[in-house]
């Protein structure tokens, strides 16, 4: 990933490609406990529907508050809730962490609520039960009254570098994807579904009874915004394209096929030495359990990344769980970490040339540095950013540009929301 010796052309980052003979994924089970995140602030403990000490079954739906059916998690293992606490994620995202102590003697304790409704697929049930299957399908895009989704793009190409999770699903689970696509057509009414895959997987994807589009091998061509721009431009009217990952679609297919919620997340683990290992683990499994299973030692000062190397989140604890959309877990040795600096922008223009969204990043970063967020949004295309991270990758001054941008977007959104609330 280093700069080439010859630097006349803009550098290109290539997506990883799955090996022809991919070893079977290592199956990991949580050792003692799992942690689930519910995307809702835990602000009224007394009103919560789940409590510490509750026994929960595999596949059970854990809804936090009665009035908000969208805030839930699916319990991946039988056990007992041992802790419910507020958790603050990236950009002040208010969440609730539910810790469940596993009880292996209740191995067969499976919740059947979904099975009862799985005979007649509907969008309501899908949103109610399948929103947290691995791949994390967002069903609100089909129920949102403002949006008329006319095309669904199923993302079979991996979004981030070093990750092969999506390709693995296409390679080994195309029949589930096909089932999922059929069910999606039924429950959403959207007939036009395209499967977006890496070029070399076009053939296998062709069996999924959907239109197939391919993306090229260079980051960030598999990013939804780039797919809209390059592949689906003719249908790119406001919000008319919905996105689901191939894993989510395969999960929907499996769920309706078997009547049981899929709970096992496929994860690409990238070790310090750069080698890769596919793992399956229930959503909620702690990173520590997974790293143990693949014999990876993490030491003080190393970096643990949930997600891909360009867009993932570095976490501060090995107890951090796998979430439904965690496609990769990456461990970086402390020697490999390139620290950010406070060197100002030298206007070298690498970011401008590498930016896939044509943002004048050199201007943007000056405005952001000065705290002129509103101006950045108006004059320097702040909201055109697709958050690919390439600017910060190429920055000679090693400015954390991506972080600046996310912070600024967050601040502007908050300001605008406050203005609207006061208006």
């Amino acid at each position, binding site marked *: 990933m280093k700069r080439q010796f010859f630097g006349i052309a803009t550098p290109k980052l290539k997506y990883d490609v799955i090996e022809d003979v991919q070893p079977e994924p290592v199956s990991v089970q949580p050792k003692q406990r799992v942690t689930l995140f519910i995307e809702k602030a835990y602000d009224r403990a007394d009103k919560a529907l789940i409590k510490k000490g509750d026994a929960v079954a595999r596949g059970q739906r854990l809804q936090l508050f009665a009035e908000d059916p969208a805030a839930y998690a699916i319990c991946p293992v039988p056990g007992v809730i041992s802790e419910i606490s507020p958790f603050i994620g990236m950009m002040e995202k208010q969440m609730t962490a539910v810790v469940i102590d596993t009880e292996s003697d209740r191995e067969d304790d499976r919740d059947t609520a979904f099975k009862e409704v799985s005979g007649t697929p509907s969008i309501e049930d899908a949103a109610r039960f399948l929103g947290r299957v691995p791949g994390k399908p967002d069903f609100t895009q089909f129920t949102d009254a403002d949006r008329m989704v006319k095309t669904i793009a199923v993302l079979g190409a991996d979004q981030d570098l070093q990750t092969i999770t999506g390709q693995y699903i296409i390679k080994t689970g195309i029949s589930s994807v096909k089932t999922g696509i059929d069910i999606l057509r039924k429950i959403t009414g959207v007939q036009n579904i395209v499967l977006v895959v890496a070029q070399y997987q076009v053939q296998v994807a062709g069996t999924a009874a959907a239109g197939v589009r391919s993306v090229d091998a260079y980051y960030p061509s598999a990013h939804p915004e780039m797919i809209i721009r390059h592949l689906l431009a003719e249908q790119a009217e406001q919000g008319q394209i919905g996105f689901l990952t191939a894993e989510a679609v395969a999960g929907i297919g499996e769920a309706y096929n078997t009547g049981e919620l899929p709970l096992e997340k496929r994860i690409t683990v990238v070790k310090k030495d750069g080698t890769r290992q596919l793992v399956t683990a229930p959503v909620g499994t702690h990173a520590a359990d997974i790293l143990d299973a693949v014999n990876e030692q993490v030491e003080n000062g190393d970096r643990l990344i949930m997600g891909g190397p360009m867009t993932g989140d570095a976490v501060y604890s090995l107890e951090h769980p796998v979430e439904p959309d965690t496609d990769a877990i990456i461990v970086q040795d402390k020697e490999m970490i*390139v620290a950010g600096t406070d060197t*100002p922008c030298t206007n*070298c223009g690498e970011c401008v040339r590498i930016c896939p969204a044509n943002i004048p990043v050199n201007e943007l970063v000056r405005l952001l540095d000065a705290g002129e967020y509103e101006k950045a949004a108006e004059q320097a295309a702040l909201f055109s950013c697709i958050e690919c991270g390439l600017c910060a990758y190429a920055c000679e001054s090693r400015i954390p540009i991506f972080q600046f941008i996310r912070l600024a977007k967050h601040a502007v959104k908050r300001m605008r929301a406050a203005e609207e609330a006061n208006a």
Partner: protein
Amino acid sequence: MPNAMKLTVSHAPFLHDGSEVSTKQYNIIAATLIAVIAGLLQYGIPALGVLTLSVGSAMAWELLMNLLTRRPVSIGDGNAALIGLLFAMLLPAVVPWWLVVTGTFVAVVIGKQIYGGIGGNPFNPVVVAYAILMISWPMFLDFNAALVDYQFDFTAGSPLVLYKAYGTAGLESFSLGGLLLGQQAGGIGATFGLGLIIGGIYLILRGFIRWEIAVSFLAGIFITALCFNLYNPEVYAGPGFHLLTGFTLIGAFFLATEDSSSPVHFIPMLVYGLLGGFLTVMIRNLGAHIDGVIYAILIINLVNPIIDKIRPKAMKRVMHHA
């Protein structure tokens, strides 16, 4: 949770291409060396004195300003050294010591540090310094006067001075090959054209300078000089002469390409370079000054923020985001 493990937490992306400000500065310094060594061979010890004093004083000014403004010490990034080096390359081999120190003061302090250091300067610091010195003490920067004690095996008069005084009639003793190989009186590191071209091509291939600027600057000179030459070859010298004399090559590869004061978008880079080349020849052919490169670069630095607004539209986003 009781956890003794301290992981490094930072924001994405977690990959970096490894580029650094200092790498670029040191590479540019390395790229000047062929021309600098050729200059040292030609002008000897006095040139070495000017070079070392210039580099040393530039770094000293930088350090002093770091301490005064209580900012991190930045002489390690090589930028101050590069400023000193480029400044010395423009100077005649024989100049008073105080002129060198004043020049680097103007370059580092007035040209760069008062704008907040690297990346903040609207003008190329070296060019600012040279321009101010050219106005303040023109007699010391007159190559013919400064180099009067040297015995050359080629025409000792500075080609641009002769050109200004006598038109093309003054240039009969110069051959393009000789000019390319540095057979002309001029700045310490600005006369050995071949070395500057090799250094410039090295920097372009490595991606340390933007080829668009260097190439369009030279193209601007070539086209403008050619027009003049075709209009009246008796009076106006051909493009080859303009390309190989004065500060043209050092300007195209090392001065106009300075990051902070030059555009980053494609079309603006071409406009910037072409305008620089055009102005250089206009000043040389029609203006009062002998060499137009310094003023031309100052002017294109000045218009850089405006022309850099010519840029592709940012991608329009059409997606709802939850």
